[in-house]
């Protein structure tokens, strides 16, 4: 393992080299609270990177900066070769159509049916889809998560696991190149959590996506990570494979396995 550096995807055994996300010297603070302090990370094509860190360590802030929901104070944040903090609203929309974001609380629109929730990103991203194409994409997305029968149900009628699957279907519906997962298994029972992990891997292989997964669920980390990054004190403390982390003697890493 290396401190303060990023292992390339090749070093962790994947034959992939094209960087999709490059983060350099990223800083973000709220008032006097420094959340990200000179954070560096590179994510390669078709790579699953899990960001590990304690609650409040800035993991969610990091992925919100990546998708442009928060603006960093300084540093470069390149996605598909474009510096996200400097993009105009329209340019950001264009980039976002190639990115998916799975919210921790799912963030399904509770006044809309499952079908309307899935149709929403299709109709909003300035991409022209015919009604036939929209219907086909909605059915495909729901089929991927095994929930076609919920198409006309309201989110309030679904269980926690089903909500997460529908949210995942909505995230995947535009077949994004990058998906950001904010604690995808938090609040789910172990069986459902494992199902979600499997879905993440299955869909990643099917659509060849790159992912950043925020988690402190070690089962999720084990099941999904090509590479694990430990976020500590706003910095990339270390990165490596799950096996590296599991066998590490570093007390900052060991505490996640206790």
């Amino acid at each position, binding site marked *: 393992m290396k401190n303060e550096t990023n292992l390339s995807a090749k070093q962790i055994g994947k034959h992939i080299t094209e960087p999709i996300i490059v983060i350099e010297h990223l800083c973000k603070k709220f008032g006097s609270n420094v959340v990200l302090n000179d954070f560096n990370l590179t994510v390669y094509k078709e790579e699953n990177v899990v960001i590990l860190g304690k609650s409040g360590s800035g993991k969610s802030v990091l992925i919100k900066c990546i*998708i442009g*929901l928060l603006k960093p104070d300084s540093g470069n944040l390149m996605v598909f070769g474009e510096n996200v903090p400097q993009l105009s609203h329209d340019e950001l*929309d264009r980039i*976002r159509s190639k990115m998916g*974001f799975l919210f921790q*609380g799912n*963030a*399904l*629109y509770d006044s809309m049916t499952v079908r309307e929730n899935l149709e*929403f990103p299709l109709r909003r991203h300035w991409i022209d889809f015919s009604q036939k194409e929209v219907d086909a994409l909605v059915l495909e997305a729901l089929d991927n998560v095994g929930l076609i029968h919920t198409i006309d149900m309201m989110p309030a009628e679904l269980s926690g696991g089903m909500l997460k699957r529908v949210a995942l279907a909505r995230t995947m519906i535009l077949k994004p190149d990058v998906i950001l997962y904010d604690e995808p298994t938090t609040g789910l029972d172990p069986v459902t959590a494992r199902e979600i992990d499997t879905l993440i891997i299955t869909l990643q292989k099917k659509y060849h996506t790159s992912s950043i997964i925020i988690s402190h669920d070690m089962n999720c980390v084990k099941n999904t990570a090509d590479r694990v990054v430990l976020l500590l004190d706003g910095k990339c403390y270390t990165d490596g494979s799950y096996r590296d982390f599991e066998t590490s003697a570093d007390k900052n890493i060991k505490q996640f396995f206790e």
Partner: protein
Amino acid sequence: MPILPKTQQFLNETGSVSRFAGHFFSIGVKPRYEIRELLTQCYIIGYRSLPLIGLTGFIMGLVLTMQLRPSLIIYGVESKLPVMIGIAIVREIGPVITALIFAGKIGSSIGAELGSMKVTEQIDAMEVSGTNPFKYLVATRVLAATLMLPVLTILGDAICLFGSYLGVNIHTVTNYKLFITQVFQSLSFGDLLPALIKTFFFGFAIGIIGCYKGYYSNKGTRGVGNSANSAVVLSSVMIFIIDLLAVQITDVLGLN
């Protein structure tokens, strides 16, 4: 002399709401127009408020007539009852009562809805989906409230006058045509227009304050509850302030 914290907080809040309203004019009215969402909100905000506005208007007209009649009998001017009721309803009671009921129903509903969407990250999800949440959620609701309140006020006034007619008929038999003729003979252009114009401002204030309180809601259920509550309180106060200003302006313009 140091500014009291409460005063400072009030001034900050006023500044923030003003900036939010400025944002509506700078961003909310530019394309892309959310026509479909605007029509949906007009239906929810306007059509669905009609039963409540109608019921309160009807009761208001009936009660007002029954309360006024004994006093007018004492002075021997009972025949002037439709005139008094007409002026009172069209100029003041109709617009203000409708706006207050509207603030209670729509202001709280917008505050709670947007507050809940904020807390559950639905607004962020909307932004990630290529939608400007300010245009989609705020501009449509503010515009719908601004356009629907005048319509509701006109309908509310009509129902209120009908309630008043029934109130008159409890004790005497009066022809409806005669009642309406007396009401409209007492009203002039200067009574109708300022009353109608101020309802646009009432609607705008209710929409902006409801959206502002919801959009900047604090996290948690208490935050959402506070948003809904303070949206109603602040909107109601704003209705009276706008009403006061409207009276002054119409007075200066000689429309009173």
